[in-house]
C-alpha cells in the first residue's frame, strides 16, 4: 500500500517541519516518561556521579565538611583487595543463579510444561503454580523463607537431615554462595519460564510434523528446530535477568548479609553497605557508578553479540 501524508514508515522527506509533524506526537508521548525518568533516574545518577568524587558521608566529620577528592574514591576502590573478591562474587552469583540457574531451569520447565500441556498432566499445573508463587513473593518474605530452610541450628533442611540420621550442614556458613544462588534461582525462575513458554507456543507445529515424517527423533527435533527458534528470545531473556540479578541485594542481605566475612558480598550489596551501614555515601556512589559502567559494558557486549547472530 502506498503510504502518504503523516503515516509514512520510511520517509525520505527533506524538510524538518514534516519530520517534526511526523515525530511531534511521539515526542509528546514520550514526555511524561521523560519527565519521570529525568527526575528520578537521570538526576540522581548525575548526583551520584558528582558525589563519587567527594568524601561525603551522612554522619561524622565528613558530613560536616565534605571535600572534593577527585579520583581518590576510585583509586581506593580499585586498590582494595576486597573489591576483587566482590567482583568475583558478583560474577559467580550472576552466572550461577541467572545464567545457569534461572535460564536453564526456566527453559527446562517451559519445555516440560509445554509438553505436558499436550498430554494434559494435571501435576503440571500444580508445578506451574508453585513456580509462580515463588516469583510473586516479595523479596523480604523470600529471604525469611530461605533463612528458615538454611539456618544451622533450627533450619528445616537440617531438621530433615537429622530426622534421617545425617549430621546438620552449616549451609549459610560453609556454602553461603550456593545457598544464595539456590534461593535466587527459586525466586526468579518463573520469569524465564514464562518467556520460554510463550516462545515455544509460537513455534509452528508443522515444523515438528515435517521433522517427524523425516524420521527425526525427539532429541534432533529439539536441537535442530526448537533451540534455534528460541535463540533471539533466549538472548533477550539473558540480558534481562543478568541485569536484574546484578542488582539483587535484599535477598542476599537477609540470608547472609554478605558473610561469612565477604564471601557472598556482591557489588550491589557492597554499595548498599558502604552507603547505609558505614554511611559513606561518597564512596557508595563510587561503587554505584562502577556498577553502572559494568552493566553498560555488558549491554554493549551483548548488543554486538546478538547482532552477530541475527
Amino acid at each position: 500500500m502506498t503510504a502518504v501524508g503523516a503515516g509514512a514508515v520510511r520517509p525520505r522527506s527533506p524538510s524538518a517541519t514534516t519530520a517534526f509533524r511526523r515525530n511531534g506526537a511521539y515526542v509528546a508521548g514520550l514526555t511524561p516518561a521523560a519527565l519521570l525518568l529525568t527526575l528520578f533516574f537521570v538526576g540522581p545518577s548525575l548526583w551520584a556521579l558528582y558525589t563519587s568524587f567527594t568524601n561525603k558521608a551522612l554522619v561524622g566529620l565528613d558530613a560536616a565538611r565534605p571535600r572534593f577528592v577527585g579520583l581518590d574514591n576510585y583509586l581506593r576502590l580499585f586498590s582494595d583487595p576486597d573489591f576483587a573478591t566482590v567482583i568475583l562474587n558478583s560474577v559467580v552469583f550472576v552466572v550461577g543463579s541467572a545464567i545457569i540457574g534461572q535460564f536453564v531451569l526456566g527453559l527446562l520447565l517451559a519445555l516440560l510444561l509445554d509438553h505436558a500441556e499436550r498430554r494434559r498432566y494435571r501435576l503440571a499445573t500444580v508445578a506451574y503454580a508453585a513456580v509462580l508463587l515463588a516469583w510473586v513473593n516479595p523479596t523480604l518474605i523470600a529471604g525469611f523463607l530461605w533463612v528458615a530452610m538454611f539456618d544451622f541450628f533450627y533450619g528445616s533442611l537440617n531438621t530433615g537431615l537429622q530426622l534421617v540420621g545425617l549430621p546438620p550442614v552449616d549451609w549459610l556458613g560453609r556454602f553461603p554462595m550456593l545457598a544464595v544462588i539456590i534461593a535466587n534461582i527459586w525466586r526468579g525462575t518463573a520469569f524465564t519460564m514464562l518467556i520460554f513458554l510463550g516462545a515455544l507456543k509460537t513455534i509452528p507445529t508443522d515444523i515438528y510434523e515435517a521433522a517427524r515424517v523425516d524420521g527425526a527423533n525427539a532429541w534432533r527435533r529439539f536441537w535442530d528446530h526448537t533451540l534455534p527458534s528460541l535463540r533471539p528470545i533466549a538472548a533477550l531473556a539473558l540480558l534481562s535477568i543478568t541485569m536484574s540479578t546484578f542488582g539483587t541485594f535484599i535477598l542476599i542481605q537477609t540470608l547472609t548479609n554478605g558473610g561469612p566475612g565477604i564471601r557472598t558480598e556482591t557489588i550491589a550489596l557492597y554499595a548498599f553497605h558502604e552507603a547505609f551501614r558505614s554511611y559513606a555515601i561518597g564512596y557508595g556512589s563510587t561503587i554505584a557508578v562502577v556498577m553502572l559502567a559494568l552493566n553498560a559494558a555488558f549491554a554493549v557486549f551483548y548488543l554486538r553479540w546478538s547482532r552477530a547472530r541475527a
Partner: protein
Amino acid sequence: MTTLGPQAQAQVVIPPRTRALEGGSRLEWALMHLAFLVVTVFFLAPFVWLFTAALDAQAAPYIRWPSQPTFENFVRIFDRYAFATALGNSLFVAGSTMLLTVVVVSLAGYSLSRIELRQKAWITYAVLLLQTMPLSATMVPIYGLARELGLRNSYLGLILIHSAIELPFLIWLMKGFFDSVPRHLEEAAWLDGRTKLRALFEIVLPVARPGIAVAAGLSFLSAWAEVLMVLILIDQQSMKTVPLAFYETFRTAGGYTEVQYGLVAAMAVLYLLPVMAVFFATRRLMVRGLVATTRGL
C-alpha cells in the same frame, strides 16, 4: 530481528490439542511426573514454613507443627499492627501505580517504537541501562528531591516514585511489544484522517492488550513489594504499606533485631494470596504479552 512473520503471530493463541493423547509411554509418564514432583517440592517447600508459622502463636524460624494451631496471629496483626490500614494503603498505592505506569509506559513505548530517530537503538539501551542504577546510590538524592517537591508523606509522592522505579525496564518492554505490532492498522487509520492519538486509542490499544497486561502485572508486583522507597518517604503510621508493616514486627532489643515470626508469616500469607490468585488467573494473557514483547525487541 523477528523470525516469524505475521502468520505465526496468529499462532500466539494456544494451538488446538489435536495431539492430546499421542501415545506417551509409561516411562515418559513416570519421568515427567517425577520431574514435576521434584519441581513442586522444591518450589513449595519453603512455603510449608510460612503456613505453619502463620498458625503458630510461638513461631520460630524453622518448620515445626504448631503445638496449638490458632488464628491468633491473624487477629493480632489487625488489632495491634493496623494491618488493615497497611493492606488498604498497599492496594491503593500499587493499584494507582499500575494505572499510572500503564499509561506512561504505553505512551512512551509506543512513541519510542514509532519515532524516527537514528540513534534509537542506543537510546533504547540507554533507557534500559538506567534501570541498573542501584537504589542505594539514588536513595539519598531522591529523598532530597522528594522533600523539596513536597512529595514526602503524600500518596502522590508514593505513586510517582513507585511508578518511576520500574519505568526504564517497562518502557523497554513496551517498546519491544509495540515493535511487534504491525503498523498497517494505524496507517490505515491515519489515511482515514484520524489523529495519531485517536488511532492509538481505537486501533492499536485493543490489539495491545497482552502487552498492557504484562506492564500492568509487573508494575503492580514491583509496587506491591517496594520497601526501601516507602521507608524513606513515609513517616506517618496512617500511610504505611504492607512491607513497612513487616518491619514493625521486628523488635529491636539491645541492638539486636528479633523477628516475631508468627506475625510476619500471617502478614505474608495475606499479602501473597491475592497477588498469586490474580497472576495465576491471568497467566495466559501475560504469557502472550511476554512473547510478543520479546519478539519485537
